[in-house]
């Protein structure tokens, strides 16, 4: 995309605007656009995250090696202490005037959601609570914290935190029955994703771009996973309906991300369906040919839609 200065030069050359107007526009754009170096993530920030991630992995490996030697309270504290620290660090960093430090604060808060889930899970395990129950408790606690953090700071890491916590809760609900139930868990992922997606499209859940991607993915992947339960062929077909709904949403809202998700879920569901129900009768090679043809058709549909949008 050309810079604003280049565009102004072109418009002035074409006689669309005079020079004083061009100068006023340039001045306005300079004053209203934040300094790129301050607002964009830099290489130093990337190294900072990498360093923290490597140190975190080292800490967890060290903990894992000594896990069996730890007393129950020490195991719980091993997760609860980093949880308190990440919450505090996020609070302090968000008060900074440096955008990079504020972003790091958001990431710290996102990590605290995972640490809370881990703390509740370990505590539940140490207290001899049935593992199916404490997975639900861990999901609930993580969801509550993620939502609170998102209300305070509606940022990209918090959207990821909310989505991850809802998936954990849905997984816990799916694991709750005596017969581990992918149908139940998958439907829950779709339900939570769909509810969040409604708020994204109402303009109430932001940042919208990431919200559309992750909650759209939840809505599509959840119903696909539910269809993996062998007992209900109808649920397998619902994956196609979900894909179709996402494509319709894409056309209605003019958003390409839903098109990608819709086509992807239909393609994956179709390949699974063909292999599950027809591979024995038509054979794997023919099933692969049909799947490949479907992929090509999907790609053509996406390309055509994108072309129309760009036109």
């Amino acid at each position, binding site marked *: 995309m050309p810079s604003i200065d280049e565009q102004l030069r072109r418009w002035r050359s074409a006689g669309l605007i005079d020079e004083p107007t061009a100068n006023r526009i340039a001045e306005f754009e300079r004053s209203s656009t934040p300094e790129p170096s301050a607002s964009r993530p830099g290489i130093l920030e990337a190294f900072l995250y990498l360093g923290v991630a490597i140190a975190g992995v080292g800490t967890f490996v060290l903990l894992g090696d000594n896990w069996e030697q730890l007393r129950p309270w020490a195991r719980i504290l091993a997760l609860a202490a980093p949880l308190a620290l990440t919450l505090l660090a996020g609070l302090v960093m968000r008060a900074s005037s440096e955008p990079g430090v504020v972003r790091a604060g958001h990431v710290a808060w996102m990590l605290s959601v995972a640490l809370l889930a881990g703390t509740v899970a370990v505590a539940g395990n140490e207290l*001899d609570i*049935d*593992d*199916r*129950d404490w997975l*639900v408790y861990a*999901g*609930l606690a993580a*969801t*509550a914290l993620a*939502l*609170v953090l*998102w*209300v305070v700071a*509606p940022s990209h890491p918090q959207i990821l935190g*909310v989505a991850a916590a*809802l998936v954990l*809760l849905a997984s*816990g*609900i799916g694991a*709750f*029955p*005596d*017969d581990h*139930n992918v149908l*139940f868990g998958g439907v*829950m992922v779709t*339900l*939570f994703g769909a*509810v*969040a997606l409604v*708020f994204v499209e109402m303009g*109430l*859940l932001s940042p919208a771009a990431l919200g559309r991607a992750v909650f759209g993915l939840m809505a599509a992947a959840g119903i696909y996973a539910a269809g993996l339960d062998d007992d209900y062929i109808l649920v397998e077909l619902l994956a196609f309906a979900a894909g179709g709904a996402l494509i319709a949403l894409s056309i209605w809202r003019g958003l390409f991300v839903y098109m990608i998700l819709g086509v992807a879920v239909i393609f994956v569901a179709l390949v699974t369906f063909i292999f599950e129900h027809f591979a024995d009768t038509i054979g794997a090679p023919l099933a692969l040919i049909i799947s490949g043809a479907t992929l090509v058709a999907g790609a053509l549909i996406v390309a055509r839609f994108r072309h129309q949008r760009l036109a």
Partner: protein
Amino acid sequence: MRDRLFVAGVIGAVALLVAVAVLALSIGRYNPSPPSLERDPDPAIPGRVVFMDRDGCIVIAEASGASREDVYCSALHVFSVTWVDEHTIAFMESTADPAGRGTLLDLRTRETLPGTAPGYVMPSPVSVNGEAVSVDSDGNLLVSKDGRVTTIASFDIPRNASPFPFTWSPDGEWILIEYYPPRADGGELWIVSRTGAIKGTLAKGVRGGGASWWIDGHGYTPPIAPTATPPKPSPR
């Protein structure tokens, strides 16, 4: 901020509602266990049953559920517990006897005699009356004799956990069943009458490895099966 609170409230409420409904209504959880005989004893069920609990203790319970008593606890792995006579039980104890003959316990004196137990307890699906018992994959308790199969009871069971008829009572009127709920801490012992009219849970938190039933005047079941190779202790 108000909009965000509204969104968080709705998403949180949906999540909480679903989770509470699942936990409170125990959605997807099976509970095939009959009513507890310990809470509500049935004097019609005769005799005494000996079994292992999850703490490694040998327990003798009135089959009616009226009372129970720990008679022997061991830090070693105890299995294959059986009646020998009215006042004696036998059991195997890991590493106690390399020859694999086990230990006798005198219930009057609580003295143990290592290495004198006669053999190993094996499940016995056939009663003294020649009736055989089994459970099909749908949780139906089937009794068969002379080629005729009768469903005497049905249990709502999960896919990967099925009750296992361990033995008939010595008088052939009752069936002792082991059931291991998924991911539960220990198994359960159920008693079902031959016709299926009476059902009860005698014990929970039971460790696998055998149970044995004594009725005065009838002796004990299952019969002891002397074997050259000891059966592996149940991991459950």
